[in-house]
C-alpha cells in the first residue's frame, strides 16, 4: 500500500479525505459541512479530482487534524461506505491482530 504522501491526486473512483486528529492522532474523515468525523459513513464521498481537491484544500487548512490526504473507498449498492484498500481498512478498523493484553497477562 503505497504511502499516501507519495500519491498524486488521481481519482479513479469514489474517495474521501482522511487525516489524523491533532490531539490524539485518531483517524478522522472530512464531512461535507467541513468538519472531521470518526465515522467513515459520515464522510463526504466524491469522485472527481476538482471535488476532492476542494475538500482537501479546506481540510489542509483545518488545524484540527494532521496530514490530510485522499483515500479510496468502496460504496456498496445500499450506499454504505467501506475503505478502499488494506491500509485504509487497518486505519479504519485498527490492527488486524489482537493486542498483547488480550492474552490475559
Amino acid at each position, binding site marked *: 500500500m503505497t*504511502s499516501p504522501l507519495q500519491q498524486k491526486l488521481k481519482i479513479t473512483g469514489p474517495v474521501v479525505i482522511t487525516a489524523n486528529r491533532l490531539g*490524539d*492522532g485518531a483517524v478522522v474523515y472530512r464531512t461535507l459541512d467541513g468538519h472531521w468525523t470518526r465515522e467513515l459513513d459520515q464522510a463526504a464521498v466524491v469522485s472527481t479530482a476538482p471535488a476532492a481537491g476542494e475538500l482537501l484544500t479546506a481540510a489542509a487548512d483545518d488545524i484540527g487534524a494532521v*496530514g490530510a490526504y485522499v483515500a479510496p473507498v468502496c460504496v456498496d449498492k445500499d450506499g454504505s461506505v467501506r475503505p478502499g484498500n488494506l491500509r485504509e481498512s487497518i*486505519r479504519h478498523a485498527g*490492527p488486524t491482530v489482537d493486542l*498483547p*493484553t488480550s492474552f490475559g497477562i
Partner: protein
Amino acid sequence: MYLYDDFDRTLVAERVSEFRDQVARRLSGELTEEEFKPLRLMNGVYLQLHAYMLRIAIPYGTLSSDQLRMLAHVARRYDRNYGHFTTRQNIQFNWIKLAELPDAMADLARAGMHGMQTSGNCVRNITTDQWAGVATDEIEDPRIWAELLRQLTTLHPEFSFLPRKFKIAVTAAAHDRAAVRVHDIGLRLHRNGAGEVGFEVIVGGGLGRTPFVGKTIKPFLPKRDLLSYVEAILRVYNQFGRRDNIYKARIKILVHELGAEAFAKEVEAEWQPIKNGALALDPAVIADIAARFRYPDYETLDDSPPALAKARATDRRFAAWLDNSVANHKVPGYAIVTLSLKPEDGPPGDATAKQMDAIADLADRYSFGEIRVGHEQNLVLPHVAQRDLPALWRALDTIGVATPNVGLVTDIISCPGLDYCSLANTRSIPVAQELTRRFRDLDLARDLGRLHINISGCINACGHHHVGHIGLLGVEKNGEEYFQVTIGGRADENAELGALLGPAVPYGEVADVVEDVVAAYLELRARPDEIFLETVKRVGVEPFKERVYATR
C-alpha cells in the same frame, strides 16, 4: 547500572519543559505541523496509522527495575497497557495522545528516561551487546564506550542535522550479539598483537533499501582516540553525505561510492588536526565513566549447585528452558537469563504493563534490579544466581516469558508492519504469529537448531530481514501483500546479506514457503548439528529454490 548525575537530570528536565511548551503551541495552532514535526521527532514522537507513537531511548539496552516500572506506568496511564521493544533496544508506545505526551515525558524523566536520539537525522541511541559486562567471551564492558559516545553525541550541535539518521553499535565479545557490521559505525573492541585493547572501526554498514555489510577502515584504533575518530567520521559524512536524495543519504552510500579506502583517507585528514585536541580521552575521564557503572555485589558461589541439577532432572520443561534460555555468566555461580518475548501467537517484542511490572519485581529479587533489552526483541536478566533459576523459571512461566525458543525458529524478529506503521507496505505481525503456530512443536524447533527468521513490512528493513537466516520482506503488488524471501543472511561477526530465493510469494503462502525452506533444510543438512546457515553455505540457494518453486 550507570548512575546519571545532575547534568543528565537537568538536561532531560529542560527538554520536557521545552516540549511541553512546543506541544501547547501546536495544540493552539501557533505552530504548524511543518514547524512542529522536527521538534516532535527530536523527542521520539511519530505520527503513525492510528495514533502518535512515542519511542523511548534505552541507552545500550540497560534498564533498572525502577525504569521498567516507569515504562509499565506509561503503558498503563497513557497508552493501552503494553509496549513494543524494538530492534534498536528501545521501546515504543503506539497509542499515546499528543496532549498527554508532556506529562508522560515528565514521568519518564523522573526515571532518567526520554525520547532523545530515537528519531531524526542525528546520532541515534547507541546500542551494544545485551550481555555486556557479564558475557564470558567479552574482553571488557562495551557500555563504557557506548556511554562516552552517548555523551559526545547527545544534542551535539554539529551533528543534530546530519544528511540522515546515524546508528552506532559497540561490541567487545568474540561473538557479535550487537550486529555491529550492519551499522553506520560498528565498533569491535579487541586485543592487538601487543596485547593492547582498542577498536576495529567498521563504517558504512546498514540495511534498508540499499543494504551493505560495513567495511573496516581502521583495524585498530587506540581507546584514547575513539571520540576524535568518530567525530572525524561524522564530519566527513556531514560534509559529503547526499542531502539531495533521501535514498542515497546514509553513510553507507557515501562509503560505497567513494570506496572504503578513499573514505578512510578523508577521515584520516579530518582526524589528524583534532586527534590530540579536546576529544583525546584522558584515562581519568575513562575511569570516571567506568566508575559510574555499578556492578552487583556478587556472592561467592559455585557453579552448578546441587539444587539446580535436581530441578533439571525432575522437570523436563525446566530442563528445556535451562538449556535454551540460560547462558554462562562470567562470575561463578551466576547465569544470564533471556526472557522470550516471542510466545506462540504473540506479537514479537511486545510486553504488557503487567509483565513489565512483574519482570521489574523479579529483577529486584533475582537480578540485582537490572534488566537488558536485546536487539532480537527479548529481555535479559543479567545477574541471576544459578540456585535461583528454578524459582525464577516458575515465575517467568507464569507471566508468559519463559518459552524456551531463544535463537530458534519461533524467536522471530519483526517490525510492527502495516498494523501500526505508516511506512509499511504489508503486515508483519500476523506472519510472525502464523509461523509461531506452524512451528509450535518445540522438539522440532530444537531439532532445527539455530534458525533466525526476520520479517520487515517494507524496504526500510526495521525487521532486519536482510540478515535473517530466513528473511521476509513485505512488498506491495497491485494492492496485494507479497513477500520476498531471502536465505543465508546473518548479523553476527560473519555478517552476510541473504540471497533472494525467487519471485515474491503471496501473503497467504508465506508460511507455507517457510515450511518448505525448513523441510528442504532437513533433507539437505549433512548431519543433525549442521545448522541452517551452514547448509545454505554448503549447498547454495538453488536446492531451496527448487523445493519452494517446483509446485508454485
